[in-house]
C-alpha cells in the first residue's frame, strides 16, 4: 500500500501557509520543485520534503493582454495586463508564477536575470478563496 503524500494538494496547502515546499531525493540529492514522489534524475522513490528560501531570478516572462477567464475574474485583461514568468530559485529548480512589482507597461525595461522573492497572493472569496504563488521584484 503506497500513500503518496507529495501531491499538488499538499504543495498548495503549504502555499496557503506561505511556504514553498518541494522534495529532495535521498538517493542522488536532486532537489525538485514542485514536490515529486519519484526523482526524475535517478528514478528513486525515496524523497523527503524540503522548504525553499524563496529567492530567485527571472529567466523568462511575458506581459499578458488576452487573459484566461480566471485572470479576467481577478481584474486583468487588455486594459490591465499582467506579467507571467519563469523563476529559477537559488536552490536550482524553476517555477511558473505571476510576477509582481515590475512595470507591465514597459516590458522592454524588464531584465532577464532580475532578482525576485516569493510572495503569496490571495484570490477569491469564502470557500473559493485560494492562495497563489507569485514573485515580487
Amino acid at each position, binding site marked *: 500500500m503506497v500513500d503518496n503524500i507529495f501531491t499538488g494538494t499538499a504543495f498548495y496547502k503549504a502555499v496557503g501557509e506561505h511556504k514553498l515546499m518541494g522534495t529532495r531525493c535521498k538517493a542522488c540529492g536532486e532537489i525538485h520543485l514542485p514536490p515529486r514522489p519519484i526523482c526524475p534524475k535517478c528514478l528513486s522513490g525515496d524523497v523527503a520534503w524540503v522548504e525553499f528560501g524563496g529567492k530567485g531570478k527571472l529567466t523568462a516572462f*511575458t506581459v499578458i493582454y*488576452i487573459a484566461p477567464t480566471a*485572470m479576467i475574474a481577478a481584474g486583468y485583461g487588455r486594459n490591465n495586463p499582467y506579467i507571467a514568468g519563469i523563476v529559477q530559485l537559488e536552490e536550482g529548480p524553476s517555477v511558473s508564477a505571476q510576477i509582481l512589482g515590475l512595470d507591465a507597461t514597459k516590458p522592454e525595461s524588464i531584465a532577464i536575470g532580475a532578482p525576485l522573492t516569493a510572495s503569496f497572493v490571495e484570490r477569491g472569496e469564502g470557500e473559493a478563496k485560494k492562495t497563489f504563488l507569485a514573485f515580487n521584484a
Partner: protein
Amino acid sequence: MTLTNTIRKFGRGVAVVGAGMSKFGAFPGKNSRDLFVEAYQEMLASVDKGFDPRDIEALFIGNYSSDLFENQGHTAPIMADWVGLAPRPAVRIEDACASGGAALRQGLMAVASGLYDIVLVGGIEKMTDLPTERVTDTLATAADMVYEIPAGFTFPGFYAAMATAYMAQYGAPTDVFLQVGYKNHESGALNDKAQFGQRIADIMEARKKSAAKKGQPIPTWANEMEFLHDNRANPMIAWPMRLYDCSPISDGAAAVLLVSEEIANRFTDASLHVIGAGQASDGALHDRATLTAIPSAKKAAQDAYAMAGVKPADIGVVEVHDCFTIAEIVASEDLGFFAPGEGWKAAEDGVTARGGARPINTSGGLKSKGHPVGASGVGQVIEIWKQLRGQAGARQLDGNPSLGLTHNVGGTGQTCVVHIFERR
C-alpha cells in the same frame, strides 16, 4: 536519464498513397464530422490509380478536444460511421496540438506491425463555436493545470516567454517575429486551403477599403512593417507576441491513406515512403534545462533522422509547427537546419522564405493556413505530399525535392512528433 540510442526501424515499410484536407477556416454550421467528410473525399480522389474505401481496415483520428470545443466525446467511431466504415476499429489519439502527428505515428505502427495493410489517418478539430476566452481556456489545458496555469500563463504567453529568453540569449529583435508572420502569409496566399490566404499587403488594402466605405479615417501605413507595428491593426496578445505572431482559431480536417510498402504501386507510381519517425515527451516548460530550444523536438528529430539515415541538409521540403512565430525560429534550430541562435538571422535574411535556400512552411504554416489543432499534424503531410509530387501549384518549390519533413509540437513541447518522407 539513460535511453538506449539503438536505431529503431519499422517492421516493414509504410507508404502514403493518398492525402486530402478540408479548407481550414471558420465554418459556422459545420462540425468536425462534416469537415472530416470533405478531407476524406479529397483523399479518396487523390489516389492516382483509384481505390475502394472498403479496403480500409482501421482508422486513427487525431483530435485534441472535441469534448470541450463541441461538447462531443468519443469522436473516432463517429468519423468511421459517417464515411460508412463501421465496424472497422477507430481510435482517437490525443497529444494536444501534436494529436495529428501522433495519430499518423500510430497508423504507421499499425501497418508496420503487419496487423493491417491499409489504414486511414485523420486529424480533426472544430474550434470556432466557442468565444475566444473559452478557446484560450481549452488550449490552456494542454499545459500543466496544477503547476503552470495558476501562474496566469496562456499558450501565447508560454511562447512569448520562450521569445524573451531567446531574445536575451541571442540578441534577436522583436521585428524578426513579425517577419516570420509576414513570410508565412506570403506563402499562404498561394494556398487555396489557407484560412488567411492573403498577403499582409492584401490585408492592409482590404482594411483601407473598408475604412473608406465606412467613412472612417483611412490608415496610412507606408509598408507591411508599419502595419505590423500598429497596435490597433496588430494588437499585443502576450508581449512580444502580437496577433500576427499567433496562429488563428480554426476549424478543419485532414486525412491520409497509409498502406504497406509492398502494395503501394497498386495505388500510385508516386507514393511517399515514411522513412523516419520520432516522438518524444517532456514536462512543464519551467522544468527544462533550456527555454530557447524544445528538447522533445531535438530528440524526435534525432530519432527520425537516424531511422531515415539522412541529414538535415538532405531535406527539401519542411513543414514546422509555427503555432507562434518564435516557434518557427526555434524549430528551425531544433531540426538542425541552423545552429542555436542562428535561426532568427536566417529568418531575417529571407533564407527560410519560399525563394530562400532553406524554405520553411511553403503551405503558409499554421499562421496563415490555420491551426485546427488536432488536424494540423496531418495537414502538414498534405503539403509534403503536394510538394514532393510536384502538385503544389504556384507555391511549388524548384529542384524536384524528394525528401520532406514534418514537425508537430504538442503544448510547449510536452510532445513533439517528427516524420520524414521520401518520394519514390
